[in-house]
């Protein structure tokens, strides 16, 4: 079941209260993916999660998406505990995950088709608007394999925005793209976010990407994944290429790098 509640600014969009996640391995052993993770995301805040591989970043996202049930603590969206997938959440995956047999337009409206069995005229109209917003209005009838990786991921973003979710979860969405496309997509995302403010949780491996995009950065430690530090970025918006050369940018980048590579024993 999906529920939708009216978001308001008074309650945090996402709240984690001492969330833990233990996976039981097939060999009888268990892996602690997350331990005692607590944080709060305010409405329309852009938060990046950064940490080494295997620190449970993706698990964290899956808990908010309602795809994984935490084994300890509680995750809440607008004050309600997450018990399953919720309508106010949209997800952009690492891979564009487009359906090769549908054209771009039908891929964008696929969530509606898949969920309700049909697509309304209003949703089709909205899909066209979103495609225009991500600069793909001329590609609506093309198949995904005719598009570049960056364009495919734009379709993935348009698809996640179709039902106008208040919360957007992004799981390393640009990590499969080349460095130049990646920068371009970051600015593109900032533009979209300014146009249609959302609460964004953005998982990434890249420190510059996190700094360029986010209001706050959640730095996580390696297994078991814990929140090591939450950093206020404090760089002025709108951000641009100049942001990358500001002294504060490098200062925080170095600080995060040190945090990420600091051995757990010293934490």
């Amino acid at each position: 079941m999906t529920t939708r509640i009216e978001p308001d600014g008074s309650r945090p969009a996402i709240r984690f209260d001492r969330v833990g996640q233990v996976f039981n391995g097939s060999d009888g052993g268990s892996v602690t993916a997350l331990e005692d993770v607590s944080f709060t995301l305010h409405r329309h805040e852009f938060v990046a999660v950064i940490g080494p591989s295997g620190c449970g970043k993706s698990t964290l996202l899956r808990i908010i998406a309602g795809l994984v049930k935490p084994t300890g603590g509680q995750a809440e969206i607008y004050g309600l505990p997450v018990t399953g997938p919720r309508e106010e959440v949209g997800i952009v995956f690492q891979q564009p995950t487009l359906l090769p047999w549908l054209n771009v337009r039908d891929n964008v409206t696929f969530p509606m088709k898949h969920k309700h069995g049909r697509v309304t005229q209003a949703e089709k109209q909205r899909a066209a608007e979103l495609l225009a917003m991500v600069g793909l209005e001329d590609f609506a009838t093309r198949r995904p394999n005719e598009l570049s990786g960056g364009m495919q991921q734009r379709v993935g973003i348009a698809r996640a925005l179709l039902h106008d979710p208040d919360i957007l979860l992004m799981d390393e969405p640009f990590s499969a793209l080349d460095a130049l496309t990646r920068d371009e997509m970051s600015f593109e995302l900032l533009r979209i976010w300014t146009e249609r403010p959302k609460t964004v949780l953005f998982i990434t491996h890249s420190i510059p990407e996190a700094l360029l995009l986010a209001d706050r950065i959640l730095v996580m430690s390696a297994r078991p994944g814990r929140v090591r530090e939450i950093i206020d970025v404090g760089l002025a918006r709108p951000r641009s290429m100049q942001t990358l050369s500001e002294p504060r940018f490098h200062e925080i980048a170095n600080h995060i790098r040190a945090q990420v590579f600091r051995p757990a024993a010293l934490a």
Partner: protein
Amino acid sequence: MKSPTISAPRSSDRRRWPDMGRALLKVLDRGAPLFASLLLLLIWELGCRLFQVPSYLLPAPSAIVQGALSVSLESWLGHIWATLRVSLQGYALAVIIGIPLAVALANSRLLSRTLYPQLVIIQSTPIVAVAPIIVVVLGAGDAPRVAITFLITFFPIVVSTVTGLLATPPAMLELSRSLGASRLREVKNIQLPFAVPYIFSALRISVTLAIIGAVVAEFVAAEDGLGFFIAFSTSFFKVPQAFAALGVLVTLSLVLFQLVSLTQRLLFPWSLPDAEK
């Protein structure tokens, strides 16, 4: 600055004969498979005549044609229809049962753990050895032949479909689950379409197996069909006729194979590998 120019040779500058040579090469290249087959037939014909091979050992192509003509068209059509009828019934049954079964196997751990070993046992049983038993159990008529065809075509369809269903990218399934869509829609909208290329490669293999199944069944018990006709002809040393029936069987297989490919091309063009688009 002067822009560099590259002057192309005009066609009138060239001599005429290399063009013709190139055209001839192109024709040869296009028709290479056909020419190779014709050449083989020619060698076969000449070899048979030169060494005077008796036609009951290896008939020359011309003898095979004569053998084919010695049987009435009505009789040919009767046998072809009998074989085709059995093949297609068994094949259709295998598709109708195999694909839903594959969906069940791919989605249930319990089913795949309990049913899969049984399927492997059935597949490992030599069908030629089981055929006489099936005939005894199911009696005369089409039923035992359809059953034998079904058994031989069914397994590749199930295995390949299961593989295809399980090859669905996990992120695609997460997308589906994050939308809270029903399991049925997940299978219909995501898993099955992803399995289409796998299903069709199995359908292509199985359609030729269906002909084999029908022929095996006809060897065991039948009063018509091309398999029966071959058994019948060879028992009277009418080897050229048997060879003619063999040619018909190969043609049938090829036509069915191409029909399956054509169906995929028409209905699911996106599922073809890039090289075939």
